Structures are given as structure tokens and as C-alpha cells.
């Protein structure tokens, strides 16, 4: 199925969670083979209201409440996808992938490969990631690096309502297993969202703001923080370019490289722990492809090497924010 970029004009604003919901509903109308299974997705509408009203429209055949059994839930999706359906399975909190990682990593991601290409696994896994709600160490993680490391999986991280809808639609239309990492803090945030169904191409980065002095590559919720930092820096006469990869696997490195060749300075920011995070991968690739263009080493900003804390004051200190991003850009500019 082709995925087209959304129309440029939108006349209304929608919340992130409603944009997701709308995209999912439209994808379900578009394709009878799309169904949703998960814990409390049908009767309750999902703990984050992601699935509100879908049971009313699509009924219990296509909206399935399952036992709390994440491994069987993902396995259900794998088996159903292998038989030609397009399942959307919801894992609620991303932290729960630990209990079903085999089905994601060894089954969903490898099935096409091991079948010699004879089938595809058009499975969409939706989940909520990120800190900021005081949900503490087992309900707040950003584990995209785990998943992006696995050949066969795709991972998307919508930064706003517009991308939440478009990436969700593309994930469902895609013939590969795709993990849609919604961000908990963004659920109530709004942006302009076209009413019609649209997909945002997977594997293509978006330049959220153009600038000439520093390239900031920001994942998920960090896009908003980076744009806020850009406003702050603009007042100081510094223009930063903000790149939102949108899809972290596959990663659109070409857009990043092109930006780096123009700005010569790079900061990568993500909510996940810095060590072994995607910032390390992105920094390495930039060094490999554009070392001669760099005026300073690639800087990474992420979380410290710690579980996500509960106490709001600690949690706030844990997650990168606009101030740290702005400070990082200033540090990069001090080097020459």
C-alpha cells in the first residue's frame, strides 16, 4: 500500500491521543483485516483512552479484550498476521515488553526472514513510553534502543498529534512489525491534524525547524523540547536546526548528514538512558559519514544511567529538557 504525505492544510486541532484514535479508526474502516487486541482496549477504551469508542463502532469481533498475558497477546498478533490479518496489539506501558520480548524479537521480527520471504508480518504494536507522569521505574521507560537493535522491526516515535495519526496509519499499512511508541506526557497535547486519513512515510526524517548553527536531532517528546530551546536560542542570535527522525528504525541518516554538512555541529537528544542509547548510534554514523564537516564532537543528551525516579523533583532532573538542550547547543558553539 502506498503511503502519502498528509495534506498541508489542517483546519482543526486535535489531541495526540485523539489523533491516534482517529487514525486507528480510519485504518480499521479502510481495511477489514485490521483488528485490535489488548488488555482493556475494548470495554474500557484503554487506560490512556487510546481506544475510546472503537468498540461501539467496530464491535467485539474487531476489538478484543484479552487476559493480562503479553506474550500470548503478541503471539496472537504474530500468528494472525502470518495468516493475513493486520493486528494492532496494545502493550499499554512500554516497560511491559520485557515479558513478551521473545515474541517480538524472535518471532515477529524474524518470521518473514525464516520463511524465505513467503510471508509478511504486518503487526502493529502500540505502547506508551516515557517519563513525566510520576509513574516511576517500571512504567516510564523509553526502550527504543532495544527494539531498534533488532533487524526486522520498525520503531516509530510520534512527537505530536499530527505525527501520532500519520505514523499510526503507516504502521498499520506497513507489511512489517512496527512498534508505535506513543509518549505519555504528550497524550493531551494538541496540534493541527487533517481530518482525512493520511500516512507519514516510515523511515523519513522531518526537519521540524531550519537553522544554520547547530543540528539538534531529537527523538519523540524531545522534539518539542528542542523546538522550545530553538526559540530561546534564536533570541540570542543562534539558529538551530531541529530534525525529528520520526522513525528510529529504519533511521533516515541522509537527512541528518545533509544537515550536519551545513551546520557542522550536532546534538542528539533522547529521553532514554544515554549509555547504549540511539544517540550513540547516531553520533557514530555521523562521525563515519561527515567527520570532516564537524567543528566539534557530536554531543549526546539523554537520561542518566539510572532507573526512572518517582519523586517529581528527581524525575524532572532525570528527563532532558529545553534548558539542557539549549545549554548543550551553547557548549557546542563554544568549541571551534
Amino acid at each position: 500500500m502506498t503511503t502519502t504525505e498528509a495534506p498541508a492544510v489542517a483546519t482543526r486541532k486535535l489531541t495526540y491521543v485523539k489523533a491516534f484514535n482517529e487514525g486507528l479508526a480510519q485504518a480499521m474502516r479502510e481495511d477489514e483485516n485490521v483488528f485490535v487486541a489488548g488488555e482493556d482496549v475494548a470495554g474500557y477504551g484503554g487506560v490512556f483512552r487510546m481506544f475510546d469508542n472503537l468498540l461501539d463502532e467496530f464491535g467485539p469481533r474487531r476489538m478484543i479484550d484479552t487476559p493480562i498475558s503479553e506474550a500470548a497477546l503478541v503471539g496472537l498478533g504474530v500468528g494472525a498476521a502470518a495468516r493475513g490479518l493486520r493486528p494492532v496489539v496494545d502493550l499499554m506501558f512500554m516497560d511491559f515488553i520485557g515479558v513478551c520480548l521473545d515474541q517480538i524479537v524472535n518471532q515477529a521480527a524474524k518470521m518473514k526472514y525464516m520463511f524465505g520471504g513467503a510471508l509478511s508480518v504486518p503487526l502493529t504494536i502500540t505502547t506508551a513510553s516515557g517519563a513525566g507522569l510520576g509513574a516511576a521505574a517500571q512504567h516510564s521507560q523509553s526502550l527504543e534502543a532495544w527494539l531498534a537493535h533488532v533487524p526486522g522491526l520498525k520503531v516509530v516515535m510520534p512527537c505530536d498529534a499530527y505525527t501520532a495519526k500519520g505514523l499510526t496509519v503507516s504502521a498499520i499499512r506497513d507489511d512489517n512489525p512496527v512498534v508505535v511508541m506513543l509518549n505519555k506526557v504528550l497524550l493531551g497535547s494538541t496540534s493541527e491534524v487533517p481530518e482525512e486519513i493520511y500516512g507519514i512515510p516510515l523511515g523519513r526524517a522531518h526537519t521540524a525547524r531550519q537553522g544554520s548553527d547547530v543540528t539538534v536531532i531529537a527523538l519523540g517528546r524531545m522534539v518539542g523540547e528542542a523546538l522550545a530551546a530553538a526559540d530561546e536560542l534564536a533570541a540570542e542570535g543562534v539558529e538551530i536546526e531541529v530534525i525529528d527522525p520520526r522513525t528510529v528504525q529504519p533511521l533516515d541518516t541522509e537527512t541528518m548528514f545533509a544537515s550536519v554538512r551545513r551546520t557542522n555541529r550536532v546534538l542528539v537528544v533522547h529521553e532514554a538512558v544515554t549509555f547504549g542509547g540511539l544517540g550513540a548510534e547516531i553520533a557514530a554514523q555521523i562521525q563515519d559519514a561527515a567527520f570532516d564537516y564537524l567543528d566539534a564532537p557530536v554531543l549526546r543528551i539523554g537520561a542518566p544511567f539510572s532507573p526512572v525516579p518517582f519523586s517529581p523533583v528527581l524525575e524532572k532532573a532525570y528527563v532532558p529538557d529545553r534548558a539542557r538542550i539549549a545549554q548543550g547547543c551553547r557548549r557546542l558553539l563554544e568549541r571551534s
Partner: protein
Amino acid sequence: MAQRASTASKKSAQVSTQVIKDLHERMVRIRLFETEAGKLMEAGKLPGFLHLYVGQEAVAAGVMAALRDDDQITSTHRGHGHAVAKGVGFREMYAELYGRVTGACLGRGGSMHINDLTRGMLGANGIVGAGVPIAVGAAFAARYKGEDSVAVTFFGDGATNIGTFHEGANMAAILGLPVVFVCENNGYAEFTPQSGHMLLTDVADRAAAYGMPSVIVDGMDAVAVHRAATEAVARARSGAGPMMIEAKTYRYFDHQGVKGLRHPYRSDEEVAEWRARDPIDLIEARAVADGTATRAELDDVWRRTRDEIAQAIAYAEASPLPDPADLLLNVYSG
């Protein structure tokens, strides 16, 4: 105690001549495929690992003879027997063991991952228990699409200690899906005897925890397995939900490979006892005794199968190796 289905039923004691011959042929095909593969491994011709199914043939044959081509199965890392019995071709299977590009997985899977979508063989699996929820998903898809195919998931006694078995059984039961759970209880989880990994005598008792009926059958008797499978499959196909069959069986060879029948974890006497109840000998003796088939007819099955296997091995050996330039093939769709 498990809620037991009526199966072991005497009512269907009569199976047709055709079914007996079918069961026999499926078992001979597995036996010869496996023993020849074992020889190739011993000769150093095959890379990787080889988990042989010899001894357990009655289970695969008995179940698969109750299935249609559009019924789906998920298998274990000891999956050759299931694949052969489901109708996967010798050529693509041997070619896969050899790592050739003509193999069932284009040389990307090997012995532990043979599959064939066209035969409803949804894959042998290198992860113990992982096929269980996948079969549940296949059954879900059948019902969703309004088809009446069923899914069968094969697993060993050891796999019933892992979460996916329990989650999958409960999921199938609560959703009322057409899944048949077939436990091939060969008494060992790798090298650990059943008494060392669970306190139950009968794995079938675990089905009761999920409100699922179960039946225990002699896994060396293909006819008995077939009867149970026929009932479970019919039950699933009719919409009555999942059921479990526990087949008590035995693997002749080691957990992996061919050599080393003398292992401290089981005695020669024990192996000999089970071998004395060989599933193929059993069905042949019965067939000859009751006039279902002549010895010559049975021998002919062996001969034809040997010829077919020799050709398949020759085909595999003559097949090209995968091209390293295609290393990234089929990682993603599109």
C-alpha cells in the same frame, strides 16, 4: 484431575484401511528422513544442530492425518517430523539442512526453523513454547475470516513449564478458539527427566487449569493418537474450543545429534523398552495381522520413500549455496 474428554473411546475403534496405510506411510517418511539426516550429520555434511524425532513418529502422523492442508501447525525445535507429516517436501527440507538456497528458508533457517506456508506449517521454532501463542493467533485468524480451519500446536513436556504455554492455553480457552494443544511427552526436557522438572505425572492435568478438556494417549500408537486428534480437531472445527492431547512417547536419539545413546540421564534398558514398542513395527504388525496390508505392500512404502529421499539428498547436494550478496534478503517486507 483433568477434565477428560471421552476420546480413548472404543466407539471409533475401527479405522479404515486407508487411514492405517496413511499413518504408516507418514511414519516411514519421517523415520527415513530422520535416519538419513542423522547419517549426513555423522558424516559431517550438515552444519548446525539436528534434533531428531525418531521414536515419536506416531504423534505427528496421527495428528496430521486428521488435518487438512489449510489447517495450521506450529512446531518445536524437534520439528522435522511435523513438517514431513504435514506434507513439506523432502527436497526443500534437505536443502535447508544443507544450508542451500533451495531450502525451505532459502538457507536462512536450518534444521530448527523449517516451515512451509503452503502446507500450513507455520514453523519449527528455536524457542521452547514460542509456537503456542502463534497457533492461537492462526486460529484467531481463521475464525476472524470465517474459515473453519484449525490450528495445532505441538510442544514437549518441558515446554509446559514456560509462560507462553500457560498464556496461550488460557488465551485460546477464554477466546474459544479452534486450537488443539498436542503435548509430545517424551519424558525429557533436553536431558532432565520429567520427574526433575515437574511434580505432575500427567501434563494433561494442566489443561484443567484453563477449563480445557484433555486426553492422554499412547504416543507410540498412531491409531490411538489419530483417534484422539480426530475428535479434538472435529471439536475445534465445530467451534467448541480448544482441547489438549498428551501423547506419551519417546525419542530414540539424544536431545541433539545421533551418537551417544549411552547417557547417564537414561538407561539402555529404558531406551530398549521403548524401542520394543516401536510405532512403525506396531502398526505394521497390526496391518499384516488383520490383513490391512501385505508385507510386500509395506516394504514397497519403504522402498519408494528411500528412493525419494536419495533423490532429495542428491538435489540438496547439487543445489547452489546462497549468494552472500543477498545477505539482507527478506529482513523486511518491501
